[in-house]
């Protein structure tokens, strides 16, 4: 057996550039201790934005890579505004020592995602996924003076290791059944050629491999049953890391799922057994994810935990697109991810701002913002309205596409029509828990003596841009059509 590389170097240029930048920053951190650490954050964020620019304007637009790079850049910028807490939690108050890598490591993870989007076989897929995961372990436990962060780091490590194990096991089954690591329709076709009757062992093993590989990607997405890590890790990890996990890392998960599931597209036709199994699998996983995410979010009081459950719930809506594997899945998923990323990143900026100045991450800390900071409160309102799916925001549009997807899928697979009422109910509960934040801002009185928040520069800019994009893309939907 010999493995022939089908990759070219220039596919990975942005990834290499980011790794190089990260190495430079880490070297500078070691050699130039006097330099203010926030410079690294700024340089790193700019680096990812430049990479994102090249990804968007390159020969083949890499939409997932673009979203991931932007999200990474924004989470580094979030760390830029979060230095006060970072310094307290890493080296003790006021000391910047040891915070340098916190800004450089996300670049490495982002490079991993960019490699992942190029992967066409399981080896590349696995290696780049591990680059992301290993970096995330470090980032999640980075605040070593903060117990929550350490706990999050450990939990993420253990559960992540389990998921890695599942992924490796799945890869082994895959190689054992088809003798190749390549991902493509031709491999699936050859494995399924004999069908159930012709070669039952091969078909069984191949589907087993598929199930295990799917489970590996579900871990990153936060889909049931591999969602268990999300609430604890999101709550405990440093807020910039949580933002990274919630958006960039989730994007990586969907990249994996797309490259695993899309080869099955020719089988998703009425009458095919494999197609029916896949549709059932995705429908069940989506339903469980929707229910767990949205219903679990209802009684949360901690903003980061709430956003964690929200990220599970939103993943459920994205999974619905996989019921129509023959349709424009990648396009729809990336569109939904964009809407989710814009609103979620902005929400995390708001959480970080409130945490820095009011010392709490509870929803109660948002009370009275409508009075003290009416403009900021409005921006946050738009973000949460978009997450809930209020018309005229991008969130509404993509949620509607999710409903269109299930209705389209029901035409060929009427056996999954029970998913529609579940989606309706969970979308409705979304309004309940997202509007809890909005209600706290406008209808509840601020704690006595609450000062108006000072909006940091980056937070103000990012919030404004995200909200403008959400409204603009939500009212001019044809822009995204091209």
């Amino acid at each position, binding site marked *: 057996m010999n493995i022939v590389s089908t990759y070219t170097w220039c596919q990975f240029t942005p990834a290499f550039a980011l790794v190089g930048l990260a190495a430079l920053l880490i070297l500078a951190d070691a050699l130039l201790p006097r330099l203010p650490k926030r410079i690294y954050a700024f340089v790193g964020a700019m680096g990812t934005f430049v990479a994102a620019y090249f990804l968007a304007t390159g020969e083949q637009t890499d939409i997932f890579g673009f979203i991931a790079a932007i999200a990474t850049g924004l989470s580094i910028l979030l760390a830029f505004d979060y230095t006060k807490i970072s310094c307290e939690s890493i080296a003790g108050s006021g000391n910047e020592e040891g915070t340098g890598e916190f800004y450089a490591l996300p670049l490495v993870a982002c490079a991993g995602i960019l490699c992942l989007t190029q992967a066409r076989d399981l080896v590349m897929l696995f290696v780049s996924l591990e680059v992301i995961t290993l970096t995330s372990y470090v980032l999640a436990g980075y605040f070593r003076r903060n117990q929550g962060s350490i706990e999050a780091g450990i939990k993420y490590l253990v559960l992540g290791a389990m998921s890695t194990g599942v992924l490796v096991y799945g890869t082994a089954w895959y190689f054992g059944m088809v003798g190749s690591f390549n991902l493509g329709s031709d491999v699936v076709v050859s494995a399924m050629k004999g069908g159930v009757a012709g070669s039952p062992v091969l078909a069984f093993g191949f589907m087993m491999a598929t199930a295990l590989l799917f*489970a590996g990607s579900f871990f990153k997405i936060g889909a049931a049953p591999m969602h268990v890590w999300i609430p*604890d890790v999101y709550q405990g990890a440093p807020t910039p890391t949580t933002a990274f996990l919630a958006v960039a890392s989730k994007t990586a998960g969907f990249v994996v799922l797309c490259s695993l599931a899309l080869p099955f597209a020719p089988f998703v036709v009425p009458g095919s057994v494999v197609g029916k199994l896949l549709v059932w699998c995705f429908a069940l996983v989506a339903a469980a994810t929707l229910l767990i995410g949205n219903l679990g979010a209802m009684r949360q009081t901690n903003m980061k935990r709430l956003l964690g459950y929200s990220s599970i719930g939103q993943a459920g809506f994205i999974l619905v697109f996989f019921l129509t594997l023959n349709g424009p899945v990648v396009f729809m998923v990336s569109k939904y991810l964009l809407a989710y990323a814009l609103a979620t990143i902005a929400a995390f900026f708001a959480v970080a701002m409130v945490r820095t100045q009011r010392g709490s991450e509870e929803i109660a800390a948002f009370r009275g913002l409508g009075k003290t900071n009416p403009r900021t409160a409005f921006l946050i309102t738009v973000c949460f309205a978009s997450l809930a799916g209020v018309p005229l925001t991008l969130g509404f549009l993509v949620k509607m596409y999710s409903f*269109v997807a299930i209705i389209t899928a029901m035409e060929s697979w009427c056996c999954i029509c029970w998913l529609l009422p579940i989606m309706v*109910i969970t979308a409705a509960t979304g309004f309940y828990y997202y509007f809890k934040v909005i209600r706290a801002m406008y209808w509840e009185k601020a704690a006595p003596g609450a000062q108006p928040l000072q909006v940091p520069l980056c937070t103000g800019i990012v919030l404004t841009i995200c909200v403008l994009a959400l409204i603009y893309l939500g009212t001019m939907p044809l822009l995204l059509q091209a």
Partner: protein
Amino acid sequence: MIHNLPWLFLLLPLLVAAIDWVCFNKHPRMAAALSLLSAAGTFGLCIAYLTGLQTGTPGVYTWMPCSLEQLCLHLGLVMDPLAMRMMLVVTGIGLLVHFFSIGYMKGDSSNQSRYYAGLSIFMFSMSTIVLADNLAMTFIGWEMVGFSSYLLIGHWFDKASAADAAKKAFITNRVGDFGFLLGILLTLGLFGTMNFADMAGKAAGIPTAVLTVTIVCLFCGAVGKSAQFPLHVWLPDAMEGPTPVSALIHAATMVAAGVYMLVRLQVSMGAEAFTETACCIISWVGAITAVLAAIMAVQQDDIKRILAYSTLSQLGYMVMAVGLLAGEAAMFHLYTHAWFKALLFLGAGAIIVCCHHEQDIWKMGGLRKRMPLTVLCFMMGTCALIAIPGFSGFFSKEAILDAALAKNPTFFWIGAGVAALTTFYMLRLCIVAFMGPARDHGAEHAKEAGFTMALPLLVLAVMAIISGYGFLANDLVPFNGFHAHGFELGLPFYVSMGSLAVGILLALAIYGLGSRTKDPLAGNCLSKALRNRLYIDALYDKVLIGGLQQAFSHVIEFLDMFVIRGIICQLLVWITVRIGYLCSWIQCGSLRAYTLVSGIGLIILVLILAYQF
């Protein structure tokens, strides 16, 4: 991009309203200037399209584009003469009213930025109705004008009567809008489209009874918005708003939207869609409104209310003409009426300001000497309204009477009777307010209105005289292919001259030349009934609101409390909350529990995908 220019008709006022509201809340002068500029901009754009400087059809905006066609909402603009010339009326009068407002609102202590933002929102919503190319968009504009009318009637919201009037207007319109919405849905069901352009000829296969119901439902919208009997009650109360608002919204444009919508439907569905029964209902509603409003106007003392009732009565004329399938005559009258009624209202506004906010005509008097220019302009408007030959109102009223005589003589005689009443009450107003000695301090110290108020009056006075002549009317009346008829001496002419003479003689006989200090007709029970609006409002308050609505609300409340809230909501909430508890209970923080859950889930996943093989 340039072919999308007409969208500015909507976006410019909307943007200006937002800026006024957000940025210039404390700077009323900037807000006023910005609103005035936007009105001028849309007016200029309108001229550019009418004169053919600009042509081309604007793009269609699709909201919610997706593969399921029935979910998509396409919003487009119609640019035919009916719409564009109507836009000229809206933006033209809108511009003059904005200009007039600067003088009228000077020194007013309320938040003027809010006022100008409201005017801009109104311009946006009215343009949406006029330019809408489908019923859904019409409905959006329909609700938006209702909203802006609410804001502007209630502009002085700390005055209880204004706040109540705003509420009354809004709620009364809801009743009509409910029917309108039903009508739109029926249209969508029957015609398969909401687009005006696709409706033509589709009425043929539909059963007459169903068609009648659809048209009557759609007509309900017009009954509410154009204040026709029995939903006319809100318009006189709406006079609590600032007078320029009354001129723009409650006289010239918004209340005419119902007529415009009906004519638009008649043009696009074809006259055959308007069944005989539907037409009968429409014209009778119009006729009844015209008569009732004219009778009630005879015993009003508030100068704005007299004008409000006259607006009702003239709208009745227009609706009657629509019912007689004479859309051309209806739009002609709408167009002339818009100019002269705006003139009358703005004139009344100038008088009210100059008399220190006195609105009772019996406390005026002698204004002819103190503010001659305003009174002269007002008289021009009056002459147009009572249809003195040569003024614009004469031509359009004649067109309606002609149509009535040709279709159904009953309506012709009703129209003629209303004309006599109109002459009578308008002359009563003029004699009492302008002639004789001043009866109160306000009128004694009245001075001529300032430049910003006088200029719009002059422009409108000119339009009130000349707008009916063929050379203007042929190009400006909002109707596709309008052509002014040559004037003929005939029965309609003699009858309307007769009613004019009767009205003038009666007014002179009863009110003389302004020497009386109180109304000789007042004091009897008939006058009392008329002053109390024939007790229709009281009836609504007592029977509909106090009786039926209360009783009905108890039933609804019972259903709401026990069935909806009790059983459905509580049960659903209970179930979802329990599941939510379960979900977060699993999330207890124990790592072993997590791996267990994941592991079980993984086994299920593998079983689903691989078990069958």
